[in-house]
């Protein structure tokens, strides 16, 4: 069954062609998502991370990156691991006792079932 995660928008099959279950876990926020969340005020960075962001922002202002260079701020944000709200983690929690049923780690925002013939996002060059 093909599903779409309501938290991260990822599309996947819950059973793979080799017959094994697939256990989805939402990715942490990407740099683009981080920047958006910070600018929207939805995300408050810990003080240590905020200090790194401030330093990188000052560095970029004083040393504008060349066309083939990534801004220092982008590089710093790429090192952060910030989990998204409502993240889903389908991996099971190991039972503490023999033969106890295993529960998934986090339901999160749930999933939406897609049409069986739906394909994952097809890359299209935008321009």
């Amino acid at each position, binding site marked *: 069954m093909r599903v779409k995660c309501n938290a991260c928008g990822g599309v996947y099959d819950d*059973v793979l062609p080799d*017959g*094994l279950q*697939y256990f989805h876990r939402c*990715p942490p926020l990407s740099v683009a998502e981080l920047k958006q969340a910070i600018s929207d005020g939805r995300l408050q960075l810990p003080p240590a991370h905020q200090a790194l962001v401030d330093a990188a922002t000052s560095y970029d202002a004083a040393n504008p990156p060349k066309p083939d260079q990534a801004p220092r701020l982008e590089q710093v944000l790429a090192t952060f691991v910030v989990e998204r709200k409502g993240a889903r983690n389908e991996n099971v929690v190991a*039972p503490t006792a*023999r033969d106890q049923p295993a529960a998934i780690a986090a339901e999160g925002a749930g999933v939406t079932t897609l049409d069986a013939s739906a394909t994952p996002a097809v890359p299209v060059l935008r*321009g």
Partner: protein
Amino acid sequence: MPASDATTLLQTRFAAPALQYLRADDNLRVTTYNALASVIVTVRARVLTADGTIEDVNDTQTPNTDRTAKTSITRTSAGWLLGGQVFVSSAAPLIGQTYVVVEIVRGESTAAIALQVLASGYVTSKQPLPFPMPMPESSLDGPGALRSIAGTTPAAGAEISETVPTGARWELLAFAALLTTAVAAANRIVQLTLDDGAAVYGRFSNQQNQAASLAWNYSWGEGLPLLNSGGLLVVHGTLPVNNGLGSGHRIRTSTTAIQAADQWSAVQYLVREFLEGA
């Protein structure tokens, strides 16, 4: 059988017919760790009772499919356990997908006391697990199961993140994905990162700038050199040889300057999977 019967039988023979003597309250316990759907394992054994009869033991179990333990107890008569086997009687798991432990236990409830491991190892429909076996196998022994996995296609502007399932251990042999960049001008630089579920312990950059409006295939592999094949739009990166990723560890992309309309897709990777059980 009362102990006196066993003693009498022993006194009338040169040697015990087998090393494993089962009391009336001793039984066989089969514990499975399995990843494949629709698997059924069958356990069969022969027990020589004190009156000289060979009794057959025959039982089945349907393992869990999420790599968690499933146990079943098969009742046996008192006597000498001559031998037996566990085999897959439904579905076709690979070596590395169905791991079995056979024990002698005292009692037949979930609180039965484990007394002796008779055998442990992977089973398939073609390779039964005989018992008793002199050298039980660890679930980390052997070649593991090769799996080619199609990962989650993330939303636009999001990164790839794949997780080692609970109860599994992976060796990441190869990882491929396609990054299609949007029109927004920026140089995207891609890293593949490995983490333990939270903290990153490995970053493997392809060290290439991918500009706007391009579709590049990224490929990481054990022992691959760094390479950008230009016109073919293929970028190679390297992975540690003989790497090992435990349950909950993640394989992620981290793309510097990724834009909201950039799209990762065609996520496909090859792993060697072992069961650690949960």
